[in-house]
């Protein structure tokens, strides 16, 4: 962001430029800053292994904010993220004469979203893999994410965020998300990094990797991804594992492209390994 940008906007105060251990494409950085300025959730989609979840961590590090992660499972309900009311404990306490039974607030436990809203300072909230949950899940959170507040009827209390958290939502596109929800988000699709960006990414993780090894490995990696018949294409995280394996294994660099040692690290399906063997002959 330029210095002449209106100082009132959030972007002027803190903008994301990527961090030391995470290399982001300029478009992605752009989208993050758009989402932060507009104060809307940023919805991130992309191939597995393109660093969707890492992004939130990196934003948190770069802006020096606390990160709260809410991982969604297939049984997660929207309510779980807001608060839970431990009625059983309260009943016990009332039956066995515990102290402070009248104070319902004692039995209210905030969920991850509730936690995020009740912090004094701004935090980064990651809602990870939102598409895992039921179809209505995102719709149930519309109000909460729009207004950054929710009401607890039991205590007649409203939990409201003092500073709007930066909300990052990731999706693996297992299900479609409801329109009403999508309309409230800023959307970014992380493309698979190209060779130059990939080199940069690998260097962030392995600063001491040998040039020739890196070069050969990346070349072989992209050739493998280019084979149409391979079903589960290797992703960044697999490449990183592979490069580590190659470095530790002390493999002769000239053999990498020809023989693809430790190919099992890259390809996880038997069929794919077979395809690779026939293609590389």
């Amino acid at each position: 962001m330029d210095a002449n940008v209106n100082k009132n906007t959030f972007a002027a105060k803190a903008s994301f430029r990527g961090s030391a251990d995470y290399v982001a494409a300029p478009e992605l950085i752009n989208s993050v800053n758009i989402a932060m300025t507009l104060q809307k959730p940023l919805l991130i989609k992309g191939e597995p292994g393109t660093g969707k979840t890492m992004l939130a961590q990196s934003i948190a590090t770069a802006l020096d904010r606390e990160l709260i992660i809410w991982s969604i499972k297939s049984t997660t309900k929207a309510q779980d993220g807001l608060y839970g009311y431990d009625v059983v404990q309260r009943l016990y306490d009332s039956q066995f004469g515990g102290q402070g039974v009248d104070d319902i607030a004692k039995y209210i436990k905030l969920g991850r979203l509730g936690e995020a809203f009740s912090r004094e300072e701004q935090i980064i909230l990651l809602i990870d893999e939102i598409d895992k949950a039921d179809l209505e899940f995102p719709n149930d959170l519309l109000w909460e994410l729009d207004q950054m507040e929710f009401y607890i009827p039991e205590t007649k209390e409203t939990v409201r965020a003092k500073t709007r958290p930066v909300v990052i939502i990731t999706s693996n596109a297992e299900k479609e998300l409801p329109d009403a929800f999508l309309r409230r988000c800023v959307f970014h699709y992380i493309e698979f990094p190209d060779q130059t960006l990939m080199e940069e990414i690998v260097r962030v993780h392995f600063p001491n990797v040998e040039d020739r090894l890196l070069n050969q490995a990346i070349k072989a990696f992209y050739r493998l991804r280019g084979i149409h018949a391979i079903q589960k294409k290797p992703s960044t995280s697999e490449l990183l594992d592979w490069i580590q394996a190659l470095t530790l294994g002390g493999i002769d660099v000239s053999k990498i492209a020809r023989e693809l040692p430790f190919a099992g690290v890259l390809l996880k399906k038997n069929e794919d390994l077979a395809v690779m063997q026939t293609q590389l002959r």
Partner: protein
Amino acid sequence: MFGPFFYLLRARGLDVSLSEWLTLVEAMDKGLSHAGFTQFYYLARSVLVKSEVDYDKFDRVFLEFFKDVAFTSDELPQELLDWLNNPDHERHGDLGRGDLADALDNDEIARMFRERLLEQKEEHNGGTYWIGTDGASPFGNAGESRKGIRVGGASQGRMAMAVAGARRYRDFRDDTTLNTRSFQLAFRRLRQFSNRVDAPRTELDINQTVRATCDNFGFLKLVFAKPRKNTVKLMLLMDSGGSMDSYGSLCASLFQAVSKSNHFKDLKVYYFHNCIKSHLYKSPRITYRESLGTDWVLNNIDGEYRVIIVGDALMDSSELTAGGYFSQRPDALNGLQWLRRFKERYRHLVWLTPENNDLLVSRFWGASYSLIKREVDTHVLTVENLTNVIKKLMIAR
């Protein structure tokens, strides 16, 4: 402001809502596009487009709209600049120009090239001959070639006309039970659970019961909830008769797997011959008595349905491009147009072929296959593919 851009996006099939548009305006107000035209492009895309599937559509509209702005019209650039709140006219103009050239990537050029090709072909069709190699229609030599097709088709004995008379009646329901387990397992994945379905509250909600009981001073109070149910609705369209006869058992096992999978919210099965036309049929016998209008289906069966079309996609390509030759009254729309209407209505649509037709593409019957393949997502019907296809059906492609 930039109203026309908004309407152009909508006209080109991007479902941009007013609130998203206002968000963009707000973003412009906050100065998010100060860095220039590229920045503006990314800003508009991330605010207006909500699926990577639509990125390409957006790119095209963007080019279509801003090419005029940047290069031909004098009036609009000023408006653009005002809108961008950027007084530096010269610098900005240059930026826009450069970025547009960048934005015109190889794919775009290839697309324009194809369009040019298409135009040329039309001209040639109007003329006397056209040497068709592997273009959009391998039967490019219009009038004459169609005659050629007829002759060729009849001699190969696969012409619909010939088969139509001797069409065997095949009811997939009557086939003997096959091992359909693997197909069924694939269909299991076609699900999207929700507890908002219209159903009575029949399931004991344990959490709420505990809660209600505690609120009730420990006296038991039961709470019931609606069960979580699959909300996926499926429409299966099967080609019947003619060249499909040879694939009877494969289609039967698919059919049985679908009809045994009772987890769908709704299942509709219709039949057609070769390609979807003005009528669909309720039984594989394809008789007029059991027909219903395709228009009716399109109007009454909502777009939420997942559509699986099963057919060998091998036919005389005039059925796709012209009205169809064996019906007395030529349809107002041809096969491809009907298919397109289906695709517009049902975003989740795949075509499964019983055999791999890729080898046939250069052959006579393969022409229709390549036409269809270009129009819809086509896969070979195998257990493994079905699993992948069903993954695709869960998200619109």
